[in-house]
């Protein structure tokens, strides 16, 4: 099931503030995409809009090429998992899962035996076959999460919308459920849209990341493209640790303000600018500056951590690369691997 948004704009209730600002997004049939960004970026609003929970908007929202609410559109092909799961507290796990089937009009509703068989299948799928009669409040967070997923899957949706589904889970359960969800997506041929603020989670599970900021889509690309060609400093900073070096371009050379950082040739035009670079891409070049290492440690995760003192500032650099420089040796910093964003100073 494909989803298309064209110049989609939504305002905060009773104000002119835009929650979603001119969103253009296409999710192809069978894709697994992640909406990422800081809190307040509009991820959940966008997901709710796609789910049909936001009746008031400008622009177009098409599901399989048809406007949402179109009468030809088969109903209930969307499964939604809420951040807090929103299970029905007064119903058993089995009743929760079968709810979407129980409320079908009589002529479309499967008979009782079919429904309970389907519930049992789903309970097996989420690996909780013995919990049919438990109440939601008797379950652990991870179990509730899976019940919420089973409830969303009971009506055999083609589109699955997940709002921070792993938020309340511990790291080990998170990783297991993440992998399991991805397998499920592939097995059932779903189209999945996942909201998360955790970029590592997004990189791990999704085919494509849609980075959002202040109600706008900043960049929409796969993980490699995002890493190699971030569109804005924000995208680069969001995806990992970033160092900034201010300076000026003169005659196709970047001249850093910091005298211990080495100039390098660039293609951009003259003017003030900033270089953004991943700490691991910084190289230490001996005898070319007055920078020196204040301290170095090896982190338990195998990375090296250096505190580097230049004449102007102190930098923390975490990198997989080991350097041969001794603590009292002087060197310059080579940042020629860094990125310059033309419109950012």
């Amino acid at each position, binding site marked *: 099931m494909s989803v298309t948004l064209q110049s989609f704009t939504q305002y905060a209730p009773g104000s002119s503030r835009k929650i979603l600002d001119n969103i253009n997004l296409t999710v192809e049939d069978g894709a697994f995409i992640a909406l990422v960004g800081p809190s307040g970026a509009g991820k959940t609003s966008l997901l709710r809009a796609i789910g049909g*929970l936001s009746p008031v908007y400008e622009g177009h929202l098409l599901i399989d090429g048809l406007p949402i609410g179109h009468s030809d559109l088969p109903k209930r092909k969307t499964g*939604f998992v809420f951040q807090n799961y*929103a*299970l*029905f*507290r*007064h*119903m058993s796990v089995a009743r929760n899962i079968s*709810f979407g089937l129980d*409320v079908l009009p009589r002529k479309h509703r499967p008979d009782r035996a079919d429904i309970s068989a389907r519930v049992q299948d789903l309970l097996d799928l989420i690996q909780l076959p013995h919990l049919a009669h438990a109440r939601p409040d008797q379950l652990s967070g991870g179990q509730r999460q899976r019940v919420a997923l089973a409830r969303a899957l009971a009506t055999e949706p083609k589109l699955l919308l997940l709002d921070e589904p792993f938020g309340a889970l511990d790291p080990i359960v998170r990783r297991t459920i993440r992998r399991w969800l991805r397998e499920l997506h592939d097995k059932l041929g779903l189209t999945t849209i996942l909201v998360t603020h955790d970029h590592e989670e997004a990189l791990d599970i999704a085919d494509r990341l849609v980075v959002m900021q202040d109600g706008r889509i900043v960049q929409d690309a796969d993980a490699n493209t995002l890493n190699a060609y971030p569109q804005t400093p924000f995208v680069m900073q969001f995806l990992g640790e970033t160092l900034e070096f201010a300076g000026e371009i003169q005659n196709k050379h970047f001249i850093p303000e910091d005298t211990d950082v080495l100039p390098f040739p660039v293609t951009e035009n003259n003017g003030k600018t900033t270089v953004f670079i991943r700490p691991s891409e910084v190289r230490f070049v001996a005898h070319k500056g007055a920078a020196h290492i204040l301290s170095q440690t090896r982190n338990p995760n195998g990375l090296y951590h250096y505190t580097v003192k230049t004449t102007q500032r102190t930098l923390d650099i975490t990198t997989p690369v080991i350097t041969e420089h001794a603590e009292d040796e002087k060197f310059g910093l080579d940042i020629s691997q860094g990125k310059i964003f033309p419109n950012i100073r």
Partner: protein
Amino acid sequence: MTPARFSISRFILCGCSYAVVLLMLLLPLVLIFTEALRQGLHTAFSTLLEPDALAAIRLTAFVTIIVTVINTLGGIAAAWCLTKYSFVGKRFLIMLIELPISVSPVIAGLIWLLLFGQEGWWGNWLTAHNMQIAFAVPGIVLATLFVTFPYVTRTLMPYMEQQGRDAEEAAFLLGANFWQTLWQVTLPDARWALLSGILLTTARAIGEFGAVSVVSGHIPGVTETMPLHIETLYNGYQTVAAFSMAALLALCAMSTVVLRTLFENSFRKQPS
């Protein structure tokens, strides 16, 4: 460990509360039952079977059932609107709903008289169309409706507030329509709060005196509810009959209160 002097003051405090409860609440009840049974159980029962007494019981039951049903439906609608939607004038509406609690029931009765009485705003029109509201059963129902309106809404609102909209949105996304969501998701979840509100409404409707007294006109056998009939009997020196009716009324009220406490306990036991 609590220091000794604290446990002494606690003992005194508890003792005082018990004394007050026994003196102010239990003693009147005991008195009602002893007075009613002074000439034996048989006499007490036979006074309840007098035609006027039976009429009063029937009228009270009739009014209570109508009022409870209407106010339950109205209360659910009001609580739903006030907690699940935000709109202009919401605070004002909440204030209005609480009005019957703060306004004296006598004033509530007077309002209906001023509207529907012979001298009232719509009195002429009603007389012309041969309709009787004041000094008749419809007036009693209206007065009781007014007085007991807030209870279902006020017991439901805090619970619905805390429910949030998530479960309802989940139901909507799973394809449930408005009524399926209301009957299968929202109300079953709030059932203990709802039952508690209904019982409170019932208890108040059975016992309402002030408002009903003003609009009813005290016509024995026609517009006298149980509380009004008790007053009539007592003023007519029919002590045993008055106290027998009072005992019956007290039993009704007590059983609703006991039921309500039971429901509230099971509501609290429900882990959130």
